[in-house]
């Protein structure tokens, strides 16, 4: 299998660290070399956060660079815009339509850019916009946005569904397995209207 680079971008507090743990487990159980890189600490306080997941025969740098991501999994629209240069031209770009205003926008010092998804779609063929917040709400917990997004992504990989489900069961606390499986399936079965 050729190397696969998955980049997860979002806002601190959206659960990207859990996402990377689940992805790491999936890669490991598929018998691949894998590296997962994330930054902890200050940026986790509502800042822009990025996680890199690389899997394949042999992985050196844990970091994904411009034009290298096969999958760009965006938990928030503005973060999709910020990191779009990191996606390959034929990458699968999955964008949660949720919008979280950064502080410069909140206080009126900057404008939240309009029609981000349309702009990205103009240049990238393989873009999926997902109302993950609504899907998570339907599942009964808005915090499950991250697992909804994993579900959407899982459908777009060659990895079997069961491998993902097992990884979720192993990674989340027992009392949250049910809700997270439900959220995963909501994402997995998500179809564009």
């Amino acid at each position, binding site marked *: 299998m050729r190397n696969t680079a998955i980049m997860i971008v979002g806002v601190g507090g959206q659960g990207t660290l859990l996402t990377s743990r689940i992805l790491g487990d999936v890669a490991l159980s598929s018998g691949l070399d*894998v590296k997962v890189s994330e930054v902890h600490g200050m940026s986790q306080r509502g*800042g822009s956060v990025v996680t890199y997941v690389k899997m394949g025969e042999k992985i050196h740098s844990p970091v994904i660079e411009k034009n290298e991501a096969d999958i760009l999994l965006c938990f928030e629209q503005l973060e999709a815009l910020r990191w779009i240069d990191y996606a390959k031209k034929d990458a699968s770009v999955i964008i949660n339509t949720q919008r979280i205003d950064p502080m410069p926008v*909140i206080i009126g010092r900057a404008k939240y850019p309009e029609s981000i998804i349309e702009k990205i779609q103009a240049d990238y063929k393989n873009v999926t916009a997902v109302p993950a917040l609504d899907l998570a709400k339907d599942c009964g917990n808005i915090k499950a946005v991250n697992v909804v997004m994993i579900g959407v992504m899982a459908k777009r990989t060659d990895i079997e569904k069961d491998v993902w489900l097992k990884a979720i069961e192993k990674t989340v606390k027992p009392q949250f397995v049910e809700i997270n499986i439900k959220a995963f399936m909501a994402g997995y079965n998500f179809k564009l209207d």
Partner: protein
Amino acid sequence: MKKLLLGNEAIARGVYEAGATVASAYPGTPSTEITEYISEYDEIYSEWAPNEKVAMEVAIGASFGGARSVCAMKHVGLNVAADPLFTASYTGVNGGLVIFVADDPGMHSSQNEQDTRIIARGAKVPVLEPSDSQECKDFTKEAFKISESFDTPVIVRLSTRVSHSQGIVEMEDREAYEIKPYVKNPAKYVMMPAMAKKRHLVVEDRMAKLREFSETTSLNRIEWGDKKVGVITSGISYEYSKEAFGNVSYLKLGMVHPLPEKLIKDFAKEVEVLYVIEELEPFIENQCLKMGLKVTGKALLPVTGEYSASLIRSKVLGQQEEKQNTIDAEAPVRPPVMCAGCPHRGMYYVLKKLKLTVSGDIGCYTLGALAPVESMDACVCMGASIGMAHGMEKAMGMDAARKTVAVIGDSTFIHSGITGLIDIVYNKGTSTVLILDNSITGMTGHQQNPTTGYTIKGEPTRQVDLVKLCQAVGVERVRVCDPFDLEAFEKAVREEIAAEEPSVIISQRPCALLKNVKFGPLLSINREKCTKCRMCMKLGCPAIVDRGDHLEINSALCVGCGLCTKVCRFNAMEKAGGH
């Protein structure tokens, strides 16, 4: 069995497998998880110390006592612990002593970008530098062996990318390590001039032996490829180099101090062009230049920031990455912010309203320097807020202290703020110190500390009483205040800064992210009542959004802390779904 481990988790595993039994640390990104993971092994005694100096002293004592022992810290923590380090280099060890220091190139979560190798060279202790999680574990075990063979503390230098990347690690069993007997030996363990003079000679002799060792250890290895290009590198830079240069020849240094001069010369002879690729200071490069080798490194690459494969490609190989899309929209920056419900928000609202000069410190509350709070005036290092406030008073006069406060977290106060407070009392200062007691160490991800009443393992323990502590050092005006009671808090601050004697306000409210913190219902803004006066915007709450023609509360971010209801004069903040 293979597992996917964070670099820091692999370090902890290495400590476990090496049979170590004592670990002490003060949390600091990116090193914190080392000790958190160690605390999950019941075979190892682990603790959070009040600061890095104490942590290192505990590890030194444990080593003298015959145990394999460790301490962990971030790069700036090593400054705090430098005093014991430089002399532990003279005493050497009994049980193996390994010190983990995590540098933060790119300053993801730090106030500076210093290079630990330079301190280690000053202290004359060997440094190992792993490149991935497997090496984190392997090098840790090797570090104990070196420590005991050469009678020296050993530093394992990490960086953010190594500490915070997960990689595959082969798990092994724990080694049965017998605690070595302690034998009284003042010539080795009591560092007074007469003994230390002899020990310094031992240190120099040891460095010579370590230099020889570095020539033959498998920590340093050559990977021959195309000999047109040779790359000398270490740590995470090795991984970036492999991607950027591909099939060239590499001298990968696992031991970066002292360097294997002969190995480097032999490698250099075989290749046509020689590069040194290392983040931060030209530590390896300068020694190569001193040896008369023709190498290129910092002439092309910066001493600042993190490296990457693409940076090496563009700066060294001249390969520029083309932008492949036509999207030209600017993405506004997204700096970190204090969380919704954060207790510091109420405090800063008052400090900003009173237009005070704020001598700041290190923790989540440092975010009070950013927009829209923009309240903090200075931040240098752990504990500095108090000494700096005192210094400002001595420079600008007592009136300045009527408009100045020091702001410091509970854990930071215990770390190194208490000595500053003693200075104020002793030297007749009149400053006001705000100690932010949020029941946890926040920024590094919720570690216990001496003020929380729990150990690293969550066991109840004696709790430092901040009020009594401040009183005991001679502060007579000490009061406790809830920063969400804005009126009372403002009154307290006004009274204490006016007092011409030292004073302490303990701003007490738990971190909003603690599990036991419960707030009221989520809020929304009643647009009919809202006059758009924007008083609530002064709080800098990430959940309150200015849409231009109206204000609204983001229900996904609001936690229902209710602070905004206290600043709204028109009662426009209502229970969500209530109108």
